[in-house]
């Protein structure tokens, strides 16, 4: 609690116990949400072609909102919990470790530079999350799943094009609601 009060409003760090444990528990919620949306995607035509659009949107939203909520290292912990538990259901887990980590750090940097009150701030934050995250996963599609480069590139571009606006919309709405409720100071 003392750490939380001592750190300034614009700090990238938040190391109190509430943030650390909150990040762990919310990381598990992140995993559950990704599992459910992954199953929904697999029932849809694009999921059968390997493009997880709803799952990608939920991934980007959770990566962004948890980093805004718990800052660092909480955001990184929540993201890495999701990446490490994904061992149980996808061989792309090595790419998720890097994608989640880099995406979370990006959101932290944007949150330090911007006050996250405007749409442009959320567009910038989610832009980095979606582009960096999907680019890294695209590399995994080529090197781990052995997909042709063109297929991986098209898959990543479509995923970015769909998830960026949807995740931005969800992040802005939920972040504003959290601000209003006093959970984010």
């Amino acid at each position: 609690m003392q750490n939380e009060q001592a750190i300034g409003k614009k700090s990238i760090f938040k190391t109190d116990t509430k943030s650390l444990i909150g990040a762990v528990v919310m990381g598990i919620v992140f995993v559950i949400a990704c599992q459910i949306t992954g199953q929904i995607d697999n029932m849809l035509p694009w999921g059968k072609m390997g493009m997880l659009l709803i799952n990608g949107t939920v991934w980007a939203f959770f990566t962004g909102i948890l980093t805004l909520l718990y800052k660092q290292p909480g955001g990184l912990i929540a993201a890495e919990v999701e990446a490490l538990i994904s061992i149980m259901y996808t061989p792309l887990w090595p790419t998720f470790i890097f994608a989640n980590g880099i995406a979370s750090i990006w959101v932290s940097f944007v949150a330090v530079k911007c006050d996250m009150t405007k749409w442009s701030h959320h567009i910038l934050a989610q832009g980095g999350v979606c582009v960096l995250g999907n680019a890294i996963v695209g590399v995994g599609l080529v090197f781990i799943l052995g997909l042709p480069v063109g297929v991986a590139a098209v898959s990543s571009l479509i995923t970015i094009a769909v998830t960026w606006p949807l995740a931005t919309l969800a992040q802005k709405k939920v972040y504003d609601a959290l601000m209003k409720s006093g959970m984010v100071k």
Partner: protein
Amino acid sequence: MFRLNKLDPRLKLTWCLFLVLTALVSRSILLNGILLGVILISELLSEKSLRSFKMLSVVLLIIGSQVLVINLIFGREGVLLYSWGILEIYSGFVATAILAFLRIGIISFSAYQFGIHTDPMDMAQMLIHWRIPYRYAMLVPMVARFFPVMIGEYQSICNSQSARGVPNDTVGEKIRNLPASILPLMYRAMRISNDAALSVELRGYGRHASRNFQKKINLHPLEGMTIVCLIIGFGGVLIKTIL
């Protein structure tokens, strides 16, 4: 008797990383096949069955079949076997799909094997040995502790929604009900994490610089030598691949 869960977590992690990195670096189907065989044999020797891999095998078979179809349609390696309109099938798709299948098998099974045969407390101790403060290292056992709790919470939310008569059969209904199941779960997660944080702080979590463990991990000299051998082995694979 050989038991994977009796081994030091550092040896198991090195073994897992050796398998993952070798699978990623090597393009040899033979080497990848041998590595996958070694994982399965070690699991058989330790647990006397491959039951723990059953669910993951089904997932990997689905992903593997998707990879095969995508490589069949879009693969351009090898010689042209068949052409019909824009559809062109090249001979290289079989080798690419087999290599990808072996690779995803090694990457998934090795990490899964490490996860199921390593006690979370041992992982925490391993992180403490690497000078990570125990406030952070102890988050690993917390994940293991809270995972079933949160699954239970999610199932209770789903049961509540069913009792209210919320339809959840078709894909459209599942998508529509997503916020109705995830947002209450987020709220419950916040409540649980606040309670848990307060409880551990009141018990002195983070007050002292170090922490005692009931069972300590110790790296046996033989395990240390195995770690060195695995690192040298990976170096050899890397050099052979580059040359």
